[in-house]
């Protein structure tokens, strides 16, 4: 047996491409290409800030830049972008945290118009502002009590006309109830000897109030809500 015949010459290179070689070469090229594309896409998505795709499907963009300031209370600036077609309501909150800061607290600014409207209703139907603003020190308890009846009645009517109320606890005050684990801490406030783990058992001190329906009147555009009682001049 001539062993030399079996010697493999490693320096030997194929002079012709057979099908196998073509396949190998192709696969290697595709893998390299895919790797490059993936890296590119990754790089792109990292450089692009999140949520910048503001399509026409957004109504409000709330921008907020939290500076490294010691103040925790942050008043948001709400920028309303008018969009031709209003499609859906979606809030996108963008936050760029430049330096480590306390977790941002997003405070919602109350709408003044609705508050003014309620004051208008209370004043108009119940003389609420007149009553509260009156100097009580110069009047006797009897007089105040007498007028208070009118105000009370009127305010009650305003509240009932424009809101639906319900108690949070259906049981009576003074009853003992048990709060299971996962109770809604916004609806039920526990006080006193808060130790251990739920279920908690305690006495209902206050049944709580909840508004189940709000029915405020509509107003015409241009309505000056700050006038809660026009001056009255009899001719």
């Amino acid at each position, binding site marked *: 047996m001539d062993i030399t015949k079996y010697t493999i010459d490693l320096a030997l290179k194929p002079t012709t491409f057979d099908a196998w070689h073509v396949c190998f070469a192709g696969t290697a090229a595709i893998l390299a290409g895919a790797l490059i594309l993936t890296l590119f896409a990754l790089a792109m998505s990292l450089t692009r800030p999140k949520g910048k795709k503001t399509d026409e499907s957004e109504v409000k963009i709330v921008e907020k830049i939290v500076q490294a300031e010691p103040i925790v209370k942050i008043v948001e600036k709400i920028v309303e972008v008018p969009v031709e077609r209003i499609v859906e309501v979606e809030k996108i909150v963008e936050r760029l945290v430049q330096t480590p800061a306390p977790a941002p607290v997003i405070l919602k600014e109350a709408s003044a118009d609705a508050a003014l409207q309620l004051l208008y209703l209370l004043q108009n139907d119940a003389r609420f502002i007149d009553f509260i603003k009156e100097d009580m020190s110069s009047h006797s308890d009897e007089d105040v009590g*007498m007028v208070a009846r009118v105000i009370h009645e009127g305010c009650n009517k305003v509240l009932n006309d*424009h809101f639906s109320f319900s108690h949070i606890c259906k049981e009576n005050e003074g009853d003992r109830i048990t709060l299971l684990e996962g109770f809604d801490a916004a609806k039920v406030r526990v006080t006193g000897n808060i130790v251990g783990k739920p279920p908690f058992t305690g006495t209902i001190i206050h049944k709580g109030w909840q508004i189940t329906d709000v*029915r405020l009147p*509509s107003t*015409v*555009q241009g309505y000056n809500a700050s006038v809660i009682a026009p001056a009255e001049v009899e001719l």
Partner: protein
Amino acid sequence: MSFFEQMKKKAVEGSSKKEQDDVQKAENIVEEVNTTLFAPETSNVETNVEVARDVSNESDSNATEFESTQSTATETFSSVIDTSEGKHFSVGIDLGTTHCVLSYADITAGDDEFTQHVMGISQSTSPSVVEEKLQLPSFLYQAHDVELPENSTALPWNAKPEFIVGEIARNLGGKTPIRLVYSAKSWLCHAGVDCKSPILPAESPDEVQRVSPFQATKAYLEHMRDAWLYLHPNAPLSQQDLVITVPASFDPAARELTVEAARSVGLSQAILLEEPQAALYSWIEKTQGEWRKQAQCGDVILVIDVGGGTTDLSLIAVTEKDGVLDLTRVAVGDHILLGGDNMDLALAYTVKAKIEKDGKRLEPWQVQALTHGCREAKEKIFSSDVDSVPLVVPSRGSSLIDGVLRSELTRDEVNNALIEGFLPRVAVHERPISRPRVGLQAKGLPYAQDAGITRHLAAFLAKQQNAADEFDAINLPENATFLHPTAVLFNGGVFKAQELCDRLMDVLNSWLIAENSPEARLLAGADLDLAVARGAAYYGFVRKGKGVRIKGGTAAAYYVGIENAMPAVPGMPPEIQALCIAPFGMEEGSQIELPNDEFGLIVGEQVRFRFFASTTRREDIIGTRLDYWQDDELSELNEIEVTLDQENRRSGEVVSVHLGSAVTEVGTLELRAFSNKDDGRWKIEFDVRN
């Protein structure tokens, strides 16, 4: 954008596509009717729809009451814009003296189910504020040019309504009565007044622009038509089955005016229904078939409807035919201008007298505030066991306590003023007191002079003693002096006070017992405030053959006055005969002619007839001539007139005609003149001019 993000976006788009379309559609509608007035709100349709509702502006709701009213409100109240197409509704409008109410039911399906709602009517409640309320106060305010800020009376469907109506009109008018039009409906039935001439507000300076009672009625209907369209953009009111209620005591001219007002706002399909009948329909609907157990053959149901400004009485006989209960309206009362508002006023004057005893003088605004306070105090006294409710009228200035007016209303005063004043215990033979009107009577409404509703009731029952004679099932005792009702149905917010119901039943039963008849029973389950509108909507359903229908026809017989052919007697007006041209109980859709009585009418000249009605002469047939009659048998209405047009005829030619009458499907009476020679025919108009 990665593939996943793409997919996600598509999915989001797909799911919200439908919503977008809906929102877009609704927006378009809002914009159409809105003329950019409500611009900030239009972007969110819900804001516009979500308006406050008021179950009853008279209800003084405490917490527990509130819960109960809420549950009914959710059931009946519907204020969501309904954009669906192809729906058909039966709509009932209670066109009241002080309030209008609109009730409706979807009858698209045509099945036997009937679920109805009361529509919240959007209206201005004060300048620039729009609220939805179950009742539209029937008030119209003629504001001064500079009185209100620009655009402050805008409605969701109209930036500048021609007239200010509803809650805002009542509120503004409370402080400026010279510009307030109220009780327009009562004027429609006021003989001697031209209802199409601008006469309201009746007592105001010349500068205030006036409207006619007819125009005011139109304005209320127009408002409700538009409020309806706002909530049902694809189902205009003009395409729905519409029933408008009128008092049973409305004369043919007033009914005609009501229909004409509806026609002039495009509601020409409207038909009329008498209010007490509507109340009974509502009761029938509410009992859900149980009414057949509560009413039986031989019953005479007395419907007592005391509204804000009028009292309306009707009698309905229950008979049996082929095993089925039949209802027939056999009698209606006179037009009595006496209602719940009189009661509040009576209380206010009681308190006013008490305050003025100390030498204090009350200003008009204080009396008004007292009236309002008394209404609430009355409800409190009636609904609880307190014996006195303090009344406080704060000063008008920003300081409440200085100049405050203080008094109280006691149970005794309420009992005296209301129960003894309006429902006195009287014998059945007593009649309303009518004093001769003194001196110059200001041009105003002929308010009832006697506030005793029980006396009016006694007079009505006695006058109608023979109303049910034609029915074998209904038999009065031999010595009866009045028609004995066996059941009573109350209607009107006044009867929320149990004491008033009890007293009225007491008095009626005392009359019945005195004549050896069993006591009348109270039909339970009536909805006092909204029954008339609800019953009207139900009537539209009944007309489709879906329930029992109250028969009745015309509630009176009608006559024209003809001069007797006799030698003239100096100083004496010629005597007249009454010729019956429409008998009692003419059914809708029937017509009759009177060929044997000929009249010569001159072409081109207006001919006028005196016109009479009788609610008691049931046996007169067409052509009956009366030479004499009792004073209370016939009442004279406004004259009627006919002008023969000159078409094909010479002016001055005498044409021989005969008269005829028809009751339209709508429920109005039509009088016609027919030529005896050719087929010429002319409409005889109810005179609305004076």
